[in-house]
C-alpha cells in the first residue's frame, strides 16, 4: 500500500537560512508517526510543506499520491497549526459547520456532535471561541482538523496549551484515530507523549533527519545491573540475553542475588544524544 505521506529529498531555504536539507519521511496507512526535534529544527516547516502552506525549495512531498498543496492532497488531510486562532465571534458549532462546508463534508450535525464528544467538548457546542480557554480552543482545533474524516492528520504541537487532563484526552483521541486507521504525523516537544502513542519516531535537527525508527528500535539497551549481597554489580556491555549467563556465573561465584535490571536508555536519552 502506498504511503499516505511521502517526502523525498525535501529542502527549504528562507534566504540564507536552510530550514530543511534533504529530508526523507514516510507515513504509512494507519501509522502514527512522531516528529521530534529542538526549536528551529524544521519540524513545522516540514508539516507546512505537507499541507501546502509553504513551498519547498527542492524535493517533493506527496499526500495520498497527490502533490502536496494540490486540491486532491488538501482533500485528504486535516491540519492543526502550531499557532492558530479561530474567529472569536464564532461558536464551536459554527466553526465546525464552516469547515464542513469548506471540506465538502456531508456529516452534518451528527459529525459535529461526534467530533466535539471525541475531543471532550460535548457541552461547548454553542460556546463562542472568545469564551473558551486556550486548552478548549486547542481541542476545538483538533476537532476542526478531523472534519471530513481525513486520511492524514497533521498535528503541529497539539498539546502545547493543554493541562495533563487535556493531554490524556488527546492521547486517547490518538489511540482512537489509530483504531480507525487514520494516519497521523504528530509534531511534538513532549517526548513521553510521543513515546506512549507513536508507532514510529523521526528526530529532526538542523533540517536533517538524525534518527528514525520505532520507539523500541531507538531505545538502546544500556547494560545489566545486578543487586547482590555485596552491592550493585554493573555489566555495561551486557544485553538482556546475557542475563541468565551472568546470574549463573555470579551464583557459581557464591554471590546472593536480590534483583536483576536490564538498563535501557529512554527516548529522551536517545534524543539528547542525537540532537546538538
Amino acid at each position: 500500500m502506498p504511503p499516505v505521506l511521502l517526502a523525498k529529498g525535501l529542502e527549504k531555504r528562507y534566504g540564507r537560512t536552510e530550514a530543511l536539507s534533504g529530508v526523507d519521511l514516510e507515513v504509512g496507512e494507519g501509522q502514527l508517526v512522531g516528529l521530534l526535534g529542538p526549536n528551529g529544527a524544521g519540524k513545522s516547516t516540514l508539516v507546512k510543506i505537507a499541507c501546502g502552506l509553504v513551498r519547498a525549495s527542492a524535493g517533493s512531498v506527496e499526500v495520498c499520491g497527490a502533490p502536496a498543496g494540490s486540491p486532491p492532497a488538501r482533500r485528504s488531510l486535516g491540519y492543526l497549526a502550531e499557532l492558530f486562532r479561530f474567529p472569536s465571534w464564532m461558536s464551536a458549532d459554527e466553526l465546525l459547520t464552516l469547515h464542513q462546508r469548506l471540506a465538502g463534508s456531508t456529516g452534518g450535525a451528527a459529525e459535529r456532535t461526534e467530533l466535539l464528544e471525541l475531543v471532550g467538548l460535548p457541552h461547548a457546542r454553542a460556546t463562542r471561541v472568545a469564551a473558551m480557554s486556550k486548552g478548549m480552543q486547542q481541542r476545538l482545533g483538533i476537532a476542526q482538523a478531523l472534519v471530513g474524516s481525513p486520511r492524514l492528520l497533521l498535528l503541529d504541537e497539539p498539546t502545547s496549551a493543554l493541562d495533563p487532563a487535556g493531554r490524556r484526552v488527546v492521547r486517547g483521541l490518538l489511540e482512537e484515530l489509530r483504531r480507525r486507521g487514520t494516519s497521523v504525523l504528530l509534531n511534538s516537544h513532549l517526548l513521553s507523549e510521543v513515546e506512549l502513542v507513536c508507532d514510529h519516531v523521526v528526530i529532526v535537527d538542523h533540517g536533517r533527519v538524525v534518527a528514525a525508527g520505532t520507539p523500541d528500535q531507538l531505545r538502546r539497551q544500556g547494560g545489566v545491573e545486578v543487586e547482590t549481597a555485596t552491592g550493585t554489580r554493573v555489566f555495561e556491555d551486557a544485553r538482556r540475553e546475557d542475563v541468565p549467563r551472568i546470574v549463573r556465573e555470579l551464583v557459581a561465584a557464591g554471590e546472593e542475588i536480590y534483583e536483576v535490571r536490564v538498563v535501557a536508555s529512554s527516548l529522551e536519552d536517545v534524543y539528547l544524544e542525537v540532537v546538538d
Partner: protein
Amino acid sequence: MTTIILYGLRESLRRKMFAVVLVLTVLFLSLYAWGTHEAFKDTRGFVGVGQGNLNSEQLAGAIVFGLAMFATLFLGAVLAVFLTLNVVRGDAEAGLLQPLVVRPIGRTQLLLARFAGAAGVCVAYVLAVYFASVGITYWAGGWSPDRLVSPGIELAAAIVVVSSLALAGSVFLSPIANGIGTLMVFGAGLMAGLLGEIGHAINSHKLQHISRIAWWFVPFDALYEDALHRLTVNTTGFAKFVLELGPFGGSHRAGTPLLVWSVLYLVFVLAAAVTAFKRRDL
C-alpha cells in the same frame, strides 16, 4: 466560494462593523439633509452681479450633491480599506488564515471570495448612500442629477478599485501599513484630480496633463470625476463653469478608454494579488 463570502459578511456583522458604519452614515445623512435644506433656502432667488444666467437651485443642488458624492467616496473608501486590509498577511499573522487555506477551496478562490464579499458590501453601501443623498437633495430643493443611475455606478466602481488595491496590499503589507498605504494612495489620487482642477482654473495645460496621467495609475479618481461630470452633463453656462471647478474635485469626462482601463486595471490588480498570494509562504 459562497461559504467564504458569507464568512466575510458574518465577520463584519458580528464585529459590529456594520453597526458603526450605519450609525455614522445616518449621522452624515442627517447633517447632509439639514445642510442641503439650509443651502437651498439661502440661495433661493440669489443672483450675483453679472450672473444673470445663473440658476441658483441648480448651482446649490449640484454643489451640495458634489459634497455628498465626495463624502460617499470617502466613507466607501474607508469601508473598503477596513474590510480588506488584513485579508492575507494580517489574518496569516494572527493564525486565522491557515486553517482555511489548507481546505480544498484553494488560495485563488479564497482571495477572490474575500474580495467579492468586501466589494459587494461596498457597492451596496455606496449605492444606498448615493440614492439616499439623491432623495434628500430632491426633497430639500427639488434638484436631481442629469444622469441618475450612472454616477452612482461609477462611484461604486471607484470604491471597488480602492478595495482591490487594499486587498492586493494585504498580501505584502501588515494591516496597519496596508491601511495607511492604501488611504495615502487614495488621497494622492484625489490630490491629482484637484491638481487638474487648479490647472483648469489657471489654464495650465501641464497641471491638467499631470492630472490626466495620474488617472491611468489611480483610475478611481477618473471614475469619480466622470461620475461628477454626469451629474450636470446637461447643465450649461456659468453654472457649468462653476461646477467644473467644484470644490470636491473637478467634473470631467473620463472617456471610454479610461473607463475600459479601469476594468482592466481591476483585473490586473486582482491577478497580481492572486499570483503573489499563491506564491506566498504562510
